[in-house]
């Protein structure tokens, strides 16, 4: 496949997370048909493609929210298995889902610690699930995560997520992903619901993640944003790879062509 060479170009940095030949079927729908994907530390890898191309599915598979039917997972030089969100979190993989996956009935600090609530020391006779939550520690952590992202409009980490604006929710979903010990952060269309100023903030956060040596995967439909922040762009189409480009070597027109028509047609046109 021609895409293979460009997918792992000679100039590409050594990958931190790499998946090969990922297949995922939902009943009759073959959503991923042998996808290869990689991302290195200190880089933003954009993942683009038409609606239904399989971007979100690939991301969920990497995050352990769906289990791949086939495929190899490598982190640095070690083969790993990701069968649950826990596996992914252990490996330092964190996700900001397209639908944010926040609990609107809980407050900001509870959402930020969801599934990993700190419990008070002591009470060792009780199973962990029944020990008292250290909610002050939880608030301190939440406050730190919020401060790091500089969400100035948020009044209190004790406000319910249900009452927050779209931008604030997005910020909280991002804070949840980067607040924990993570080396890979996947963001699924994080700016789709945001205004100009809030989009700016999210893009700044993504750049800061790259500067702190995270491996960032950024899914978006907005090619202007993609070309601004991404180092490489991976194009998916109908659940398969088209190719991966370095941003320096391509232009939006080429990407749009690859997204809508794939490579072969483009080559045909070029000939």
């Amino acid at each position, binding site marked *: 496949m021609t895409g293979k060479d460009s997918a792992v170009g000679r100039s590409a940095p050594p990958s931190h997370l790499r998946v090969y030949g990922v297949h995922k079927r939902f009943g009759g729908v073959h959503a991923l048909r042998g996808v290869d994907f990689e991302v290195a530390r200190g880089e933003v890898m954009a993942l683009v493609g038409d609606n239904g191309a399989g971007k979100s599915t690939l991301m969920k598979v990497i995050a352990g929210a769906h289990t791949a039917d086939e495929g190899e997972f490598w982190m640095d030089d070690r083969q790993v298995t990701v069968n649950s969100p826990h596996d992914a979190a252990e490996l330092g993989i964190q996700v900001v889902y397209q639908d944010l*996956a926040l*609990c609107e009935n809980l407050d900001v600090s509870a959402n930020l610690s*969801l*599934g990993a609530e700190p*419990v008070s020391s002591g009470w060792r006779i009780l199973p962990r699930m029944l020990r008292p*939550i250290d909610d002050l520690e939880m608030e301190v952590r939440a406050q730190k995560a919020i401060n790091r992202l500089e969400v100035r409009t948020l009044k209190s980490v004790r406000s319910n997520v249900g009452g927050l604006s779209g931008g604030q929710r997005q910020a909280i979903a991002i804070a949840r992903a980067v607040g924990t010990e993570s080396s890979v952060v996947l963001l699924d269309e994080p700016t789709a619901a945001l205004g100009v100023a809030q989009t700016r903030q999210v893009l700044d956060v993504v750049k800061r993640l790259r500067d702190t040596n995270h491996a960032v995967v950024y899914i978006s439909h907005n090619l202007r944003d993609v070309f601004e922040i991404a180092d490489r762009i991976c194009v998916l189409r109908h659940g398969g790879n088209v190719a991966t480009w370095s941003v320096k070597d391509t232009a939006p027109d080429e990407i749009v062509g690859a997204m809508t028509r794939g490579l072969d047609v483009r080559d045909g046109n070029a000939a």
Partner: protein
Amino acid sequence: MLPETNRTIVDRLRELRQTRFGAFVPVLLALAAIWFYFGVAVPLWDFWSDPDATGIRFIFLSPRNIYNLFMQSAVIATLAVGITIVLLLGDIDLSAAATAGVCAALLGVLVLAGVPGWLACLIVMGVGIVMGAAQGLLVAYVGIPSFVVTLAGLLGYQGLMQKILPTGNLNIGDPFVRSIARVLIPDFWGLVLATALVAFVTALALRRQARRKARGLELDSGLAIWGQVAFFAVLVYAAVITMNSYRSLPLMILLLVALTALVGWVTTSTPFGRSIFAVGGNAESARRVGMNVKRIRVAAFGIVGLMAAIGGIFGASRFGSVSYTAFAGGSLLLESIGAAVIGGTSLFGGRGSVWNAILGALVIGSLGNGLDLSGASAADKLMFSGAILILAVAIDSISRPAGGSPR
């Protein structure tokens, strides 16, 4: 946040319901209104409209009636506390009363066969857990909607109860079982207990505030803290003094409060409880952060089964007998679901509290008791309960955050 002037009454209601304390307000208002109506308005009306009356008789608000009211509401409240747990998940349990019936019947049969009372109670509680968890397994692992599973459970357990009690009635004379409803805490110790409780809650609130300060977190206003403590103290002392002025604080009420405190603590302050709220709020996101949603569901149904069994024990103890109509075949189920919902626990999942269930049980109990006192028919009672239930669910629907959770 909207500017102050643009907020409608619905927005205000919504904001009120979001706060921890504000969720109590609607049910407390309902309770106050019902008590005022039956306790003050009806007696005054009777007095003025009856030229022969020699004095106003405040029967409803008499210590004796309040005492009975609490005892009558205790079984409903126990079941409602359990049902609240599954409502928080966004599920429902229609079989709770039938489970209570089976457990009570089994208890009767066991003590009749000579099993010691305490052991019979433990066995029955275990059976309750199994009966609840079995339904939970069907909901979580087979994926049948809880409405259907527990409707089948309701029918099946009703049948089971009739199998255990072919005559439909059984007297229970076991002293241990009877003592739960009979034992009274001496007046003095009741007051000591109330004082200790208030002191404990105050100390907890102050320690919390001090810790918040030490860690540099935003502080609650002193007014809010002392307001809550004072409110709590008034409730506790009023209840104990009222009980004391008729008889004394019954052990059963104390057990109910202790159980509710335990379940309340588990639901609000442990990772398990947090996961119940998370599943009720957004099950998919709970799953994605790695919570075992299925196991949480089964555990929640197990807790309802346990509370139903305890409700069955309380009922058997209070009536001194087990009858089909008092549990499975009667109005207990609808009253306890009604109590949970009137208390403000959302049918849509993720919002509510077990304490509200107790207040809701008092609303239902007061309504029945008040209508009985004023000589209303069973038909009137049913219609009033229906109206209150609709009102409670309407408040729930209106005060839900606009749009719901995005899917």
